[in-house]
Each structure stands twice: as structure tokens, then as C-alpha cells.
């Protein structure tokens, strides 16, 4: 990045089956000083030429209906070394606009309208070449070009996502903050736009020739001190002490927090948080009347709130709590009695770092939280950023790599790397805990217990770890050990969903009824447990572990209180969807039929649409495709990635070494025939002689 050299003498390839580009693009390229231009209109010719001499730029149509598409060209580009990789630009029809974000995420340099004139193309080329030669940075130019496209199609949400991805990678480049601000303003989020412009200004955006114009266009005034306030939409405060609540309220109001929810009871707070998963900030006391902070923070994370910054406001945090605070990603501790100024700084810093992480510790914390939440794509992005930071030691880099390998399902490889990390002195809490989990997956129960015990010695209050140990003891038929671990977990937090889940799993056939009763007394119909299972199943679906998801949905459905309920309908639909994904269509159909027979099903429309597809597949053998936005698991609110990048992006390619590739990931869904873009590259059928 920042070192791109455009060589006009190198060959430019135009792959154009219809030969429409010769008279327009060809002329434009010649006018820009390119002389070595080759036109090909057959795939075989292209594949033949590809290997003959290096290409600097390739132009083509998307050809999404063909066997060989623009997606294949991008894959071919990605397979080359960075130094010999050409820029790839494509021409799109208006109807193909939905493909542009996906193609951008694969490293496409620029997209152009397919209806064009020589002047139109020359103008675009001139701009791109001038930008490339000025900045020597293909990522920056590509992002700039992509912004123009997103604004033209009014896709402002995607513009915000792109800018945020770029800021995570280039935290000191003001261009991307300005891009983010434009996205916010165009999406009608003026406060956030003003704050982004303020951030851009802090990174030297005044030197950009268009900055003043953007400020003027969107704000109609100059930046002022009030733009320094980061808009926080929602905050939850959990503190049984009304006096503390009254002290925190004006601080949050001064920060412009729009919705502040105060709770004296932590259970009510957790119920609220489960329904408002997009809460932007949580402030909690460490020791409450019926629960300690270590439990609250673990319950918040178990409920799936991995991205929300949590601050502890308490005088009761001790030195030995630090390990747990770090393990569960607490942003900061504000000591009581509250000093307004310190508290304001801590709150602002936590929220800003959550949105624009720039400090090493924050990025590392965010990475670990994403790993905990099994959000592979986000974790991978942060891992790439961490690998480039000077503060990241070799042991830590290895640890990060192990986490990513394990999360992406490469358990054996993760095990080898983790052992290497352990031997290199990375014998930390995280490595031990991870090794425990890996060994459990590999059924090395004894080894797993050893590592988890080591981790427990460092951080003894983790309920998750104790429950994991209980399950391992149970797998080894050592019920005493299992019961001991479960009792220890219950002693820390008996109401934790993890304890409830472990309790149910320890129940065995032929067990003494009293033991069964003691294990399951708190679990029947537990809303929190069912919600936890639903979230866990959704995560398994995202990781494409469908049998695990199906088993988890079934557990949740079996634990539901009998009778009609919205939860039952949602779970049945989700289970049907999971069955469909594993092609068990007859089973999926049974669940859908029950929903269609219900007179007030909240998922009736979705169930009917899926049912129609299944019936059409069973009776008429029509292809069964599940990739439009409609068929999305219910409650899957965070737009998990629908596009399968596996096998397309070479694992060893690093971020941004081809425009936006591996910096920006498209999170939406594509039209049903996008699969065509992802099929393997056709093999060269015969060796045609190219003139």
C-alpha cells in the first residue's frame, strides 16, 4: 500500500466476448499512453495469454451468466504474487449493480457502467491514472472509486461499512474518516457525521483539497468544539445505589446519550440487554446485593454482547480481579467516589476506541471478544491489523494465529501452533484455555483437563471454564470430578446459562431421581437458557456447523414450556432452515407444515416461501438455492456474512495487497446465480495459437 507503480509499457488485456470495447476503451487507453494492448474474446485465448507475459491491467465485463465470469478473473489475479498482480476493472450493466460490493471485496480495482462513450471512458481512466500516480496507492484509489459508485446507487450503509473497515486498517489516514463522514451525512446520521469529520480533522484532513468543501456541503458551517462529542444512542447503567445513578445520569446526559436505562436489578438489566443487543455502552457496579460483578460481566458476554464496551463503576474492584476483567474484555474501571472529569474521559475513550480502535490493547481486546463471539470475519480483520503493530510480540502473534486457525475449523493445525506457542513461553491464560478447548475437540480429555486446570489457576472465576471441565470429566465417566466442577461453577453463579446447560448435559439415564432433580431444577423453561441456545445455534450456522446447530435448536425446542408461543415458532423456523441447509428437506418440510397450520404464526410468510421452494424441489426437481436475504435465521440481527469467501481468497494474501481485498468484506446477500462466480476456474481446454 502506498507503493503502487503503474507501468504503461506493460501489457493491458481486454477480455471482451462481444468486441464492444475495442473502439471505446482501446482508444481511451491509447490516448492515456498505453501501447501494449491485447484484445481477446475467447476464454482459452485469455488463459493462454495470461501465462505468457505479465499484465498490468485487465478490463472485462462481469459475464455473470457465463461459465467463466469476472469473479474467475479476480481469482486468477489473487493467485499471482502482489508484484505481478494486475489491476482489474469491470463493466457492469445496471442490473448487475448488486455484484459490485462483492467484486470489490475480492480486490476489483474499479467498476464502470457498461453503457459508455469514448469520452466517458477517457474521463474515468484519466481520473484513475492521475490518482494512482499521485498517491501510488491502489487501495486508496479503489476506495475512492467505490465511494463514487455507492453514492450513485445510494447504498450509504455499505459506504459506512467500507469506511469503517478502512479506518480499522489505516487509523491515521484522514481520507477514510472523511469517507465515513460522507456516509453518515448521506444516511441522515448528522451527529455521527460531524464527529467523523472532527476525527478526520484530528488526523490532518485540512490538507485534503476537498475537506473544506465537504464540511461546508454537509454541515453548512465550520467544525466546532461541540462536534467533538461522540453520539451515543443507548446506554445501560446497572447499579443498586440510587445516589450513584443520580451521579452518573448528568455525566451521560452531558455526553449526549439519547437513551439511558437505569437498573437496580441485574436480572432485569440482562433481560433488557437481551432484547436490545445494539446497546452501545454498559456501566455496572462490581458488587451488587445479590450478585458480584464477575458474574454480571460473564452473563453479559454469554448473552452475546461481545461488541458492547463495558465499564465498571465501583470502589470494590481488587487487584486479583484484573485477570477476569481482561479475560472478559472490560474496557475500564471508574473508581468511586466518581470524579466527573475522569469518568467522562474513561467513558468517551471506551466508546471511541470501540468505534475506531487505534490503541494496541483495545485492538487486542476487541480481537479476543470477536473470537469469544466466534465472529471469524471480524476477528480475521483485527488479527491482520495486530500482526502489523510493533507492540505485538512474536508470541502474541502466534497466539493470535492459533485463535484464528481454531475459529476457522483447522483444529489439528491450531493444536500444533498452540503447542509451539506454549513452548515459546506463551504459556498464558489464553494459550492454556485454547489448548484445553482444542484438546477437547480432539478428544484428548486428559490433556484438555490439564490445560484448563492451568488456566483455572490463573483465572479461577470463569464459569465457562468450570463448566467445560465438568463436561470433560463427564465424558471421562468421572462423575465426581464433574459434580465438583459444576458445584464450583454454581457457587460462582448458579443462574448462569452455562451452568444450566452443563447441568442438563450431566443428566444420564439410570441416574438417581434426586440427583436429576438437583441438576435440572432451575433449567426447565428457562428463558435465558433457551435464548442462549438459540444464539449458540445461530453462531453454529454462521460457522456452517449445521449438525451442531440442529442439535442445539432441538435442545432449545425440547426445553421450551409446552404450548404455542412466538419462541416456538421462531425456533421451529430456524430448525427448518438448518435442516434445509443440510439438504434434509423432508424434515424441514415437517416443521414448516406445523408453522403453516398455525393460525397466527409470526414467521408465516417466511415459512411459506421456504416451504414452496422445498415442495418445488421435491416434486419438480427445481434447484434448491438458499442465499437470498429472505431466508435468514430469525434474530440474526447483525447481518452475518452471507457470502462464502472460503477457497476464493488465498489464505496467505495479506490485507489490502490488492485494492480492498481482505480489508472490506461484503456482508449482504447476492442474487441466486452468484454461485457461478465462485465455481473453480475452467481448465485450459486446448492450446490455441494467439496472434
Amino acid at each position, binding site marked *: 500500500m502506498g507503493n503502487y507503480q503503474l507501468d504503461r509499457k506493460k501489457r493491458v488485456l481486454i477480455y471482451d466476448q462481444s468486441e464492444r470495447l475495442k473502439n471505446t476503451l482501446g482508444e481511451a487507453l491509447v490516448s492515456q499512453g498505453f501501447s501494449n494492448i491485447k484484445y481477446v474474446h475467447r476464454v482459452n485465448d485469455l488463459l493462454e495469454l495470461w501465462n505468457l507475459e505479465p499484465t498490468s491491467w485487465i478490463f472485462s465485463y462481469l459475464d455473470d451468466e457465463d461459465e467463466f465470469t469476472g469473479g474467475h478473473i479476480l481469482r486468477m489475479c489473487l493467485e499471482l504474487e502482489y508484484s505481478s498482480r494486475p489491476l482489474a476493472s469491470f463493466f457492469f450493466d445496471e442490473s448487475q449493480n448488486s455484484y459490485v460490493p462483492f467484486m470489490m471485496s475480492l480486490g476489483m480495482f474499479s467498476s464502470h457502467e457498461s453503457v459508455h462513450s469514448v469520452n466517458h471512458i477517457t474521463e474515468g481512466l484519466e481520473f484513475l491514472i492521475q490518482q494512482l500516480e499521485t498517491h501510488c496507492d491502489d487501495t486508496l484509489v479503489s476506495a475512492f472509486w467505490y465511494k463514487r459508485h455507492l453514492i450513485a446507487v445510494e447504498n450509504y450503509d455499505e459506504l459506512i461499512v467500507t469506511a469503517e473497515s478502512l479506518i480499522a486498517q489505516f487509523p491515521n489516514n484522514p481520507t477514510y474518516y472523511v469517507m465515513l463522514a460522507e456516509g453518515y451525512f448521506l444516511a441522515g446520521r448528522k451527529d455521527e457525521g460531524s464527529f467523523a469529520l472532527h476525527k478526520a480533522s484530528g488526523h490532518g484532513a485540512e490538507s485534503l483539497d476537498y475537506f473544506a468543501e465537504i464540511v461546508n456541503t454537509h454541515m453548512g458551517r465550520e467544525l466546532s468544539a461541540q462536534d467533538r462529542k461522540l453520539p451515543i444512542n443507548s446506554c445501560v447503567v446497572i447499579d443498586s445505589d440510587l445516589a450513584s445513578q443520580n451521579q452518573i445520569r448528568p455525566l451521560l446526559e452531558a455526553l449526549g446519550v439519547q437513551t439511558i436505562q437505569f437498573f437496580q436489578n441485574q436480572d432485569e438489566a440482562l433481560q433488557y440487554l437481551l432484547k436490545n443487543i445494539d446497546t452501545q455502552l454498559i456501566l455496572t457496579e462490581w458488587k451488587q446485593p445479590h450478585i458480584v460483578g464477575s458474574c454480571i460481566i460473564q452473563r453479559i458476554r454469554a448473552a452475546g454482547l461481545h461488541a458492547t464496551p463495558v465499564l465498571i463503576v465501583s470502589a470494590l474492584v481488587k487487584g486479583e480481579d484484573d485477570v477476569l476483567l481482561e479475560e472478559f474484555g472490560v474496557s475500564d474501571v471508574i473508581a468511586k467516589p466518581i470524579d466527573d472529569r475522569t469518568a467522562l474521559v474513561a467513558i468517551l475513550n471506551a466508546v471511541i476506541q470501540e468505534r475506531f480502535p487505534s490503541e494496541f490493547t483495545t485492538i487486542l481486546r476487541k480481537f479476543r471478544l470477536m473470537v469469544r463471539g466466534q465472529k471469524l470475519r471480524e476477528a480475521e480483520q483485527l488479527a491482520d491489523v495486530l500482526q502489523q503493530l510493533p507492540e505485538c510480540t512474536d508470541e502474541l502473534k502466534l497466539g493470535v494465529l492459533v485463535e484464528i486457525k481454531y475459529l476457522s475449523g483447522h483444529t489439528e493445525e491450531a493444536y500444533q501452533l498452540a503447542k509451539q506457542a506454549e513452548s515459546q513461553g506463551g504459556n498464558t491464560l489464553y494459550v492454556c484455555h485454547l489448548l484445553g478447548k482444542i484438546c477437547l475437540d480432539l478428544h484428548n480429555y486428559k490433556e484438555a483437563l490439564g490445560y484448563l486446570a492451568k488456566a483455572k489457576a490463573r483465572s479461577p472465576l470463569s464459569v465457562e471454564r468450570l463448566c467445560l471441565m465438568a463436561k470433560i470429566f463427564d465424558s471421562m465417566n468421572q462423575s465426581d470430578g464433574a459434580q465438583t466442577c459444576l458445584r464450583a461453577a454454581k457457587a460462582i453463579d448458579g443462574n448462569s446459562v452455562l451452568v444450566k446447560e452443563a447441568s442438563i448435559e450431566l443428566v444420564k439415564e439410570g441416574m438417581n431421581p434426586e440427583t436429576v432433580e438437583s441438576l435440572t431444577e432451575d433449567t426447565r423453561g428457562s428463558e435465558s437458557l433457551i435464548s442462549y441456545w438459540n444464539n449458540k445455534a445461530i453462531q453454529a450456522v454462521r460457522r456452517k456447523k449445521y449438525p451442531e446447530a*440442529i442439535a442445539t435448536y*432441538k435442545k432449545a425446542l425440547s426445553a421450551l414450556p409446552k404450548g*404455542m408461543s412466538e419462541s416456538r415458532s421462531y425456533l421451529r423456523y430456524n430448525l427448518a432452515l438448518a435442516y434445509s441447509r443440510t439438504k434434509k428437506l423432508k424434515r424441514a418440510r415437517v416443521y414448516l407444515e406445523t408453522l403453516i397450520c398455525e393460525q397466527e404464526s409470526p414467521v408465516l410468510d417466511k415459512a411459506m416461501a421456504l416451504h414452496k421452494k422445498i415442495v418445488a424441489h421435491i416434486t419438480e426437481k427445481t434447484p434448491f438455492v438458499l442465499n437470498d436475504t429472505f431466508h435468514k435465521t430469525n434474530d440474526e440481527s447483525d447481518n452475518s456474512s452471507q457470502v462464502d469467501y472460503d477457497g476464493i481468497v488465498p489464505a496467505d494474501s495479506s490485507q489490502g495487497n490488492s485494492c480492498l481485498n481482505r480489508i472490506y468484506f461484503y456482508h449482504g446477500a447476492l442474487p441466486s446465480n452468484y454461485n457461478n462466480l465462485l465455481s473453480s476456474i475452467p481448465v485450459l481446454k486446448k492450446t490455441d495459437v494467439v496472434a
Partner: protein
Amino acid sequence: MADKKPFESQDVLVVAKDDAIRRALTRVFTNCGATVYCERDGHEALKQQRKLRCRVIVFCNDIQRGGAQWFAHQLRVKNIADSDVLWYIGDKPITYMDGYTSRPFKPVVLVKAIAYNLAVVDDLKKAE
């Protein structure tokens, strides 16, 4: 070989006061392979269920003694001889019942809904 009937070797308890409903449901469930038992009030139905342990109970809204809410509460809160599917014939959902079919109804619609719910119960019992 003939297809297996949806309620083959299943016991179904029909609780309805109206003779026409009892007759119609008896005929349709019998045709689907079930053994059908009938009761005219909730208390008798509960006694019968304790003995028979039917997998399916269909409860009609014309019952006055031991009504639908009471019956569902006995089965599913007090856990007295619960069934796999407890279905209501009436115009509104009843707490703890698995579903309902509004009157007037075609027997085949009711049977279909119950059969699929029963299949779901069976599937949930299967380990993945």
C-alpha cells in the same frame, strides 16, 4: 406395500360434547390408523387419559365441565398424564395447548396439523 397411515397404532382421545364432532373425528382418525377414545367432559377425559396415556388429545370448545384451560393446566402444569399433542377446536389459542383449529373446519385440515406436530415431537426425540 400400502403406505403407512399417519396415526398407525396411535391412541387418540377426542373430548367433545357434540355427537357430530365426535363421530366425524372418530371416522377420520380411524381412517388414519388411530385407535380413538371419546369423552364428553374434561374430568372424565382426565381420568381416561391417566389410564390410557394417549399421545394425542383433541379438545373441543363445547365442553362445559372441566373446560379447556382447566384441562390443559392439569396436563401441563400439574404434569398429570401429559400427551405429546394437545389440540384445541375453538376460535382462540389456549395456554399450554399446542395449537387450535377454528370451527367450522374440515377434518382433514385438523388431522394434517396434528400429524405434523406429532412428527415434530418424534423428530425432537431423535438424537442428531
